[in-house]
């Protein structure tokens, strides 16, 4: 099942991002988006592990650039979530390579897809909800928040590194 969903996710992510750029009439970006999609698809076909990470970095970068260029947020969000889904599925496909296709493995695959669907759904819905809540803050507050994010994330990363050995 993953073999069919994974290429679809890659195509959807590229199509959503491309659509956002087309609507913003930024045609020059389209070849780059298409190139990322093609390389990623080709990499999956040839079982290159690095193409999935490259796809996620490019997908997130293109979505962030699109947002900064004031393109339609919806398309960027869909593009990013589809990229994330494809990245996740690429990892699962890698783990399933050379694995006995027994009932156990199929069950894991199905359960993984169900959870991924939930996470992706939440990833789409929550930003839309958050979009409705608006509040402003000054530069000082922004700097303070930035510092908090920096310290908090660093601590979280260190903690998780220790936890996972």
């Amino acid at each position, binding site marked *: 099942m993953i073999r069919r969903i994974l290429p679809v996710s890659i195509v959807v992510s590229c199509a959503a991002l491309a659509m956002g750029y087309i609507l913003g009439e930024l045609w020059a970006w389209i070849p780059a988006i298409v190139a990322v999609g093609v390389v990623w698809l080709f990499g999956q076909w040839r079982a290159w592990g690095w193409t999935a*990470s490259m796809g*996620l*970095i490019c997908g*997130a970068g293109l*979505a*962030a650039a699109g*947002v*900064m260029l004031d393109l339609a*947020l919806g398309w*960027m*969000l869909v593009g*990013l*979530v589809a990229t*994330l889904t494809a990245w*996740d599925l690429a*990892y*699962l496909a890698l*783990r*399933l390579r*050379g*694995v*006995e296709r*027994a009932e*156990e*493995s199929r*069950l*894991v*695959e199905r*359960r*993984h897809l169900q*959870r*991924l669907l*939930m*996470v*992706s759904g*939440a*990833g*789409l819905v*929550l*930003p839309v909800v*958050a*979009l409705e809540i*608006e509040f402003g803050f000054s*530069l000082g507050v*922004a*700097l303070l*928040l*930035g510092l908090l*994010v*920096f310290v908090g*994330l660093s601590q*979280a*990363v260190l903690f*998780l*590194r220790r*936890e*996972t*050995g």
Partner: protein
Amino acid sequence: MRRFSLLASLIYLLLLVGLATLSGRLLLLAIPLTIYLGAALLSGPRELRLSASRNVSADRVSAGAPVVIKLSVRNEGSLLEEVLVEDLLPPRLRPMEGESRMLATLPAGETLELEYTVPGRRGCFDFGDVRVSAADQHGLFEREVLLSAPARLVVLPETLRLRRVSIRPLRTRGYAGPVPARQGGSGIDFFGVREYRLGDPRRWINWRLSARHPRSLFTNEFEQERIADVGLILDARQRSEVRLAGESLFEYSVQATASLAETFLGDGNRVGLLVYGRFLDWTFPGYGKVQRERILQALARAETGDSLVFDKLDYLPTGFFPAQSQLVLISPLWRADLPMLVSLRARGYQVLVIRPDPVAFESNRLPPDQAVALAARVLRVERRLVRYKLQQAGIRVVDWQVHEPLDQAVHASLGRVPTWFRAVGVEW
């Protein structure tokens, strides 16, 4: 961990850039990634408490027989959402049915069973660790552990049935057997005539000779047949190996050695084995089924390899073999090996060389080409020259085209023993 770092870095960047540019829309983009990270964090494995056990359908099989391996991994800790069990197989061993990897969910207290079949390819295989990696549902937090589940599988070489191989060492052992002992006594083949002694059976009296000497009687003597010491030497130097189209010439050599060992032991002889390659693997001479097993096990672990010391046959440890015994060398043989074989003959050993033909083996598997044909012709001439020199030194040679049965090659070369070969005192 790399996946986690990548995702964390992206979230980090989006948040920082969003805050730096005061762009709420950029912060929004970090939400799906953060939800994904949070979901992974919630379902991540805490601690791995696992044990593994392995069951091999047979620890000793003949080549070609499939072996079923069952691996059980028991979870003695908490639920593991996605656990990948991978049996680290010895090199040269690949499953022919089933897989040695499995992805599953492993609840607490439950056991995961993995079953696969491996082909019985000659060798001695040590199964060791099982790699188990448990991850969260998104593979961000992965824990890996190596579990020990040792087992050993010995795949013995195939043995072919041979008719009796005629050997004639200078010295035999005390027990009755099939090898002519160069001594008069009770036997089948005529050996000589001597004066009648009291107690000689009347039917052994040579009446024709006795008639010519009216005052004395003469008795026929027959050649005693006894068992002998046989030393098998398998050439495992790298140069003896030709590997082409998935086939190996060395495998044929091993098969021939196993067949000869079986035949000689079946005749009651005392047989020893020396595998001469990267190192010396010596199986002390012995009799019977136990010795057969020892030799087959030694052949199962035989591998080709290079050694500076054992590059030539010059360091063949003759002290391993009883004096004046029969040596059988299984080797494609090179010109540089000739002096040692001649020296063995000079020391009183009877030497028989079984030569699997590497030229025919290789040229039959190469596309027909004029250059290949010419090269094969040159090499055949060289092999014929080596054979001629060996025969001049009194060494018997069996040239074996490996696509033909060994029995056919042995009996074509050794089947008819010339009368002069059997004559007393002639060392051939």
